[in-house]
């Protein structure tokens, strides 16, 4: 019964989404006020019914209604409550419903925080977001209905993959989707501006906070995925350049270019067509990612669904949304010409160059991800493109990017001189050089030029960011939040790249065979196997190892790596034991029993690995600060806005 209510709610939401997509937009074109005013209430109605559908699906999970096929394939009576709640978005159909829910929520929130936005523009924005809603809801109704029944209903469900019974992984999709959906706002505003035929600084001021918040969520979502892979998958890695991972990185890279481009459009009324194009590209990459993850076109451990039939639907959706927006761009871009002028050495140029590099990085990731498909489609053969390619190529692009990041704070708007820049850059560059050479010499077991490159990039960005705070005549505490946000976000980048560099260069990993009482040494650390015993829990039986880690002879911690066999699955799962630290992680995973009490173990020493995700948190915080800047929170219209609306 509940599932049917959910299904009907989804159908009603679909109808409302169609109305939302067409009526306000037509009203804006034809000047019909009543139609324009329908935007907000219809959006709220759509949210109500999508929300109802979502509640119905969650309810089905909570009461173990296995007559619903989606519940039967993703849940189980023995599943802990929290994972029943998160299981709703754990597989294809439910994740789409979450997407739709977040999308309609964002639409309503945008409609609420829209004082100062002319009604016509808001109507267009809500309509465009409604079009995206139509896409996702119809995708569900026609190919991926979460409410399909299963007859006869099984007594118990097939449990959720044990890998997914994890808090980190549970929260990762919602975070990522918040980011994806958030970028649809910038996209919608861009479409609205193109239809309107004009775009000004006020437009940029409306769009910036939404885009910054979307960026914050995407940063967190990607970082969560990386962190989860590290502690759950047991091979010490944190990024594999898997197509699905790349599908989230590409919009992040272009989204970063977008937030910088928006800054220029707001401050200097320049870069208008670039900003619009970047907004279209960012959201297009989001939709492309949705296609790649669910169509089966690329192989991935992550793939939600591998159904070419569903792939066709998404492809058509892509053609309509992206093709439509690019067509609009081709037609309307000339009317978005910016008149601002700037010289070759200027912050504008610096930011343009920054965006060129970010776009190249995104293009490179796209190239590497799709290249095997290209060769296969051409009949030339089958290849694989993996980490060795991406790691090598991306480093070369990242270095000039970091160089620019540092310069960006000093270079002036409109016109600057190279000699002035050199004067400003000398000290931070010199200090960075010293840091990059000295620190490894003092602390690292071996030297490598890649370490030097990583550290000099990180120090350069960090120092220039800090200097910017201290350099202007105003006290740092009087600087606007957007400046603080930028400084902190850049500091976050420095922290992350430090973590990446040091953990990539100085990690130590060893597979060893230990009998109880035997130990293995990495540097100052000693790992001694005490023993392995059997433990039983609600839904699994495990072998639990007890490993004593000591540093320089002194007892540090007892680690308990486990090898679990879940009741629903015959495959054993490794649950690694990690002693997390600010400057290093110690990581032990249990392997196989090798006879006479010996076991194989994998032992890692990973220096500075936490800095990767700490840096992401710092970056996200910076983005949040920037979004909270006072000028976005001004209530009511100012004189300027009253004139332009």
């Amino acid at each position, binding site marked *: 019964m509940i599932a049917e209510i959910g299904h009907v709610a989804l159908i009603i939401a679909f109808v409302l989404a169609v109305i939302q997509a067409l009526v306000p937009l037509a009203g804006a074109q034809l000047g019909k006020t009543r139609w324009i005013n329908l935007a907000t209430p219809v959006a709220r109605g759509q949210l109500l019914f999508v929300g109802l559908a979502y509640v119905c699906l969650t309810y089905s999970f909570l009461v173990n209604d296995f007559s619903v096929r989606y519940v039967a394939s993703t849940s189980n009576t023995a599943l802990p409550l929290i994972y029943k709640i998160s299981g709703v978005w754990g597989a294809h159909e439910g994740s789409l419903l979450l997407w739709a829910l977040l999308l309609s929520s964002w639409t309503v929130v945008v409609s609420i925080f829209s004082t100062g936005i002319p009604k016509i523009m808001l109507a267009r924005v809500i309509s465009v977001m409604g079009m995206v809603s139509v896409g996702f809801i119809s995708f569900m109704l026609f190919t991926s209905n979460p409410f399909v029944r299963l007859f006869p209903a099984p007594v118990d469900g097939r449990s959720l993959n044990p890998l997914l019974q994890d808090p980190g992984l549970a929260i990762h999709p919602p975070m990522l989707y918040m980011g994806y959906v958030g970028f649809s706002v910038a996209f919608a505003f861009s479409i609205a501006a193109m239809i309107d035929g004009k775009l000004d600084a006020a437009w940029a001021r409306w769009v910036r906070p939404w885009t910054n918040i979307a960026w914050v969520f995407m940063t967190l979502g990607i970082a969560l995925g990386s962190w989860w892979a590290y502690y759950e998958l047991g091979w010490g890695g944190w990024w594999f350049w898997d197509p699905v991972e790349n599908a989230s990185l590409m919009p992040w890279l272009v989204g970063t270019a977008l937030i910088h481009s928006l800054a220029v459009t707001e401050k200097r009324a320049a870069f208008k067509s670039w900003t619009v194009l970047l907004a279209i590209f960012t959201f297009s990459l989001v939709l492309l990612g949705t296609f790649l993850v669910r169509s089966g*076109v690329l192989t991935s451990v992550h793939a939600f669904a591998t159904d070419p039939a569903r792939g066709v639907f998404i492809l058509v959706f892509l053609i309509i949304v992206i093709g439509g927006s690019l067509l609009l761009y081709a037609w309307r871009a000339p009317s978005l010409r910016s008149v601002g002028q700037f010289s070759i050495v200027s912050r504008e140029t610096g930011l343009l160059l920054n965006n060129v590099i970010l776009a190249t990085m995104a293009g490179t990731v796209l190239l590497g991800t799709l290249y*095997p498909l290209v060769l*296969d489609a051409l009949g030339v053969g089958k290849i694989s493109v993996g980490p060795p390619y991406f790691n090598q190529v991306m480093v070369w692009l990242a270095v000039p990017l970091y160089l620019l990041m540092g310069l960006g704070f000093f270079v002036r708007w409109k016109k600057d001189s190279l000699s002035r820049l050199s004067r400003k850059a000398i000290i931070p560059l010199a200090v960075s050089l010293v840091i990059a050479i000295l620190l490894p010499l003092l602390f690292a077991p071996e030297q490598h030029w890649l370490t030097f490159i990583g550290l000099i990039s990180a120090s350069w960005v960090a120092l220039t960011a800090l200097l910017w705070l201290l350099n202007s005549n105003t006290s740092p505490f009087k600087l606007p939040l957007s400046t603080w946000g930028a400084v902190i976000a850049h500091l976050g980048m420095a922290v992350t790249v430090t973590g990446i560099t040091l953990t990539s260069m100085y990690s130590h990993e060893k597979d060893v065979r230990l009998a109880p009482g035997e130990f293995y040494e990495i540097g100052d650390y000693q790992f001694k196997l005490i023993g392995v015993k059997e433990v039983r829990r609600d839904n699994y039986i495990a072998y639990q190892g007890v490993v004593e880690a000591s540093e320089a002879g002194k007892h540090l911690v007892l680690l308990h790596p486990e090898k679990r066999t879940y009741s629903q699955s015959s495959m054993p799962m490794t649950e690694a034991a990690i002693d997390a630290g600010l400057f290093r992680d110690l990581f032990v995973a249990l392997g196989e029993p090798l006879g006479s009490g010996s076991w194989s173990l994998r032992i890692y020493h990973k220096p500075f690995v936490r800095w990767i995700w700490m840096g992401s948190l710092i970056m996200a915080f910076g983005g949040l600060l920037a979004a909270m800047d006072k000028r976005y929170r001004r209530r009511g219209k100012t004189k300027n806005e009253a004139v332009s609306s």
Partner: protein
Amino acid sequence: MKNSLPLILFGLLVVLLGVGLTLDPREVPSPYIGKAAPSFNLPKLYASTDSISLEDMKGKVWLLNVWASWCGACRSEHQVINRFVKNNQIDVIGLNYKDNADEAMQWLDNLGNPYISVAVDSDGRTGIDWGVYGVPETFVIDKKGIIRYKNIGPVTQKSIDDTIMPLIIELEQEAS
């Protein structure tokens, strides 16, 4: 017109993705097509002191069918192969891949043995040499010992009718 460039590039992307929907990213084509079959010399399943080697099959057109008793899909394929051997004078050698001899013999007892010989590849080395990455797989080898076709996955009646049989007829015409 430079403003149409993104649209044009997108169009190309759509074509690529559309084609991609018809392809299988997991399928690994064999690099051996048109190249000499890797040699092997393996003990026979039913006479473990005897051995069978690639050289034994020179001058004939034959099939190598990689199978195992633990492989589910091999069961349905087996009936197709039984029928195929019964209707045609083609030699099929079975390559018993990473299997248990008793279970393999039991399996053949139950489902029928169409093979002129069953080679035992207990550690899978020969499989690796032939580029086997899944079970079942079937190779068509010509009189000169060149691999001419690889069927990935179970052999179906359709693949026999459409591809394998016509190829065999063609290969039989060739000189040794």
